[in-house]
C-alpha cells in the first residue's frame, strides 16, 4: 500500500461514508476555487488543517505529499511575476505579485482539501461503491482489477529495484538507464503472467465475470451530513460577508 492509503485506513474518519467526506472536502474545494482568495483561501486552509487534526491525519505525511505539487504550484505562480511580449521583451508583470499570490493561495488551499479527502478515505471504500453508479460494468471491473493488481506489482517493482541497486545497477547513469529499462520490461512480463495465472485460478473457481464485494452499508444520519456541510457553508458566509463589508 502507498503511505497515503495506509494513513487513510488508520484515519479516525475512516468509518464515515465517503459521500459525507466528499461533501466536506468538495465543499471546501468549491470555496477555494470560486470565492475571492482573500480570505477564502486562508479560511479553507484553516478548516482543512482543523479537520485533519480532528481526523488524526499524520501532518508530516500530509506535508510530504504536498511538497511535490507545491513545487509545481510555486513554479506556475512565479511565472506570473514576469511578463513577455510587451514593450520590453521580458519585464516585471504589472500586478504580478498580487496575481501570483492569489493563484498560489487558491491552489494550495485546494490541494489541502484533496489531501484531506485521500488521507481519510481508502480507495477500496470508493471502489466498492463504484459498481452502484451507472458507469459501464466493464469499466468498473477493470478499475477494481487494476487496484487489486497494482499493489502487488508495486511490491514487485520495489523488490526488483532493490535487487538491481544491491548489484550496483544504479551506480552510473548508463547502468541506471539500463536497469530502469529492464525493470519496465520485467514488470510488463510479470503483469501479463500474473493476469494469466489469475485468469486460470478464477476459471477453476467458476468465475462468472464479476468480482463484487459486499459493503455493510448503514444509513448516514442527518447530523453527519449537516456536520460535513457546515464548514464549507461557514467559510462561504464569512468570505461573502467580509467582501460585502469591504
Amino acid at each position, binding site marked *: 500500500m502507498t503511505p497515503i492509503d495506509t494513513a487513510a485506513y488508520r484515519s479516525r474518519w475512516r468509518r464515515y461514508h465517503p459521500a459525507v467526506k466528499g461533501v466536506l472536502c468538495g465543499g471546501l474545494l468549491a470555496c477555494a476555487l470560486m470565492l475571492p482568495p482573500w480570505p477564502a483561501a486562508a479560511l479553507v486552509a484553516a478548516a482543512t488543517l482543523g479537520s485533519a487534526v480532528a481526523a488524526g491525519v499524520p501532518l508530516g505525511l500530509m506535508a510530504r505529499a504536498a511538497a511535490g505539487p507545491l513545487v509545481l504550484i510555486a*513554479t506556475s505562480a512565479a511565472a*506570473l511575476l514576469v*511578463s513577455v511580449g510587451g514593450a520590453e521583451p521580458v519585464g516585471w508583470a504589472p500586478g504580478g505579485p498580487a496575481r501570483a499570490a492569489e493563484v498560489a493561495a487558491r*491552489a494550495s488551499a485546494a490541494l489541502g482539501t484533496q489531501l484531506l479527502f485521500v488521507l481519510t478515505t481508502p480507495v477500496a471504500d470508493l471502489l466498492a461503491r463504484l459498481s452502484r453508479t451507472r458507469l459501464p460494468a*466493464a469499466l468498473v471491473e477493470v*478499475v477494481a482489477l*487494476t487496484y487489486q493488481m497494482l499493489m502487488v506489482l508495486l511490491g514487485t517493482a520495489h523488490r526488483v529495484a532493490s535487487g538491481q541497486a544491491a548489484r550496483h545497477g544504479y551506480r552510473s547513469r548508463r547502468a541506471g538507464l539500463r536497469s530502469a529499462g529492464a525493470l519496465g520490461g520485467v514488470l510488463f512480463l510479470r503483469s501479463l503472467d500474473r*493476469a494469466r495465472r489469475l485468469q486460470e485460478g478464477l476459471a477453476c473457481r467458476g468465475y462468472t465475470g464479476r468480482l463484487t464485494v459486499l459493503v455493510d452499508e448503514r444509513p448516514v444520519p442527518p447530523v453527519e451530513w449537516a456536520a460535513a456541510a457546515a464548514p464549507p457553508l461557514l467559510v462561504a458566509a464569512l468570505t461573502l460577508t467580509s467582501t460585502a463589508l469591504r
Partner: protein
Amino acid sequence: MHIPEGLLPPLHAAAWTAAAAPFVVHGVRSLTREVRANPEAKLLIGAAGAFCFVLSALKIPSATGTSSHPVGVGLGSVLFRPPVMAVLGTVTLLFQALLLAHGGLSTLGANAFSLAVVGPWVAYGAFRLVRALTARLPEGTSLSLAVFTAAFSASLGTYTVTSLQLALAHPDPEGGVLGAFAKYATVFSVTQVPIAVIEGLVTVVAVRLLTSVNRGDLVRLGVLRPAPAPVPETAPREAADREAGTADTAAAGGDDKEKNA
C-alpha cells in the same frame, strides 16, 4: 507532468474534462466490446492498468537526480494503442490523484487530455511514422528508433499541452496566451527535455528486453511484424517464465520472494 489541484479555474477544468470525455468514452466502448467478445481480456486489461500505474510511479535517473512518473505513456501507447490508453491513462491518473496526490481531482480532465489522450496519440503516430520510414532498416534498429521517437515525442507533446493549458488559464497581461505559453514552455523545458530524452532511452531498453524474451506477445499486440519463419502465437509459459527469470536475475535483479509467492 500533472497539473495539481486548484491550479485551473473551474470553467477551464470543466472545459478540459469535456474535451477529454469523447476519447475516454470511445475507449470505454472499445474496452466493453473487447471484454464482451473475450472475457479473459478483462484481467489482461486490469494488469495493463496496474502496469501503467507502476511505470508512472517508477523513479528513473534524470538530470536532477531521479524523477518519477514518466516512462508510462510512450510504452503504454506502443503496447496497447491510444483508445485503450485513453481509459488506462485516465484510470492511472485517478489512482495517482487518490494514492499519491499526483495531480488533482478537479484537474483530472485536463491531465487526462494531456497525458491519456494527446500523449498516446502523439506517441502512436510517431511510432507508426518512424516504423514506415525505416521499413528497409533491420527490424531491431527500426523498432528502437520508432520506440525512442514515440516516447520522446509523447513526453514533449504532453508537456506542451500542459503549458498551453496553464497559459490559457493564466494569460500574460501583455503577451496574452502566446506570451504565457512561451513562459511556461521555457520554464518546464529545463526539466522536461532531458526527461523526454531519458524516457526515450529507458523505453528502448524495455522494448529490446521484451523483444528478446517475449516476442510472441509483442507480435500479438502488433508491435513487431510477424517473422517470416513461423513464430508461436504465445511463447510457451515455461519458456516465458524461464526467460523472464533469466532477465530478472541477469539484468533486472533477483526476485525470489515473488517467485515463491
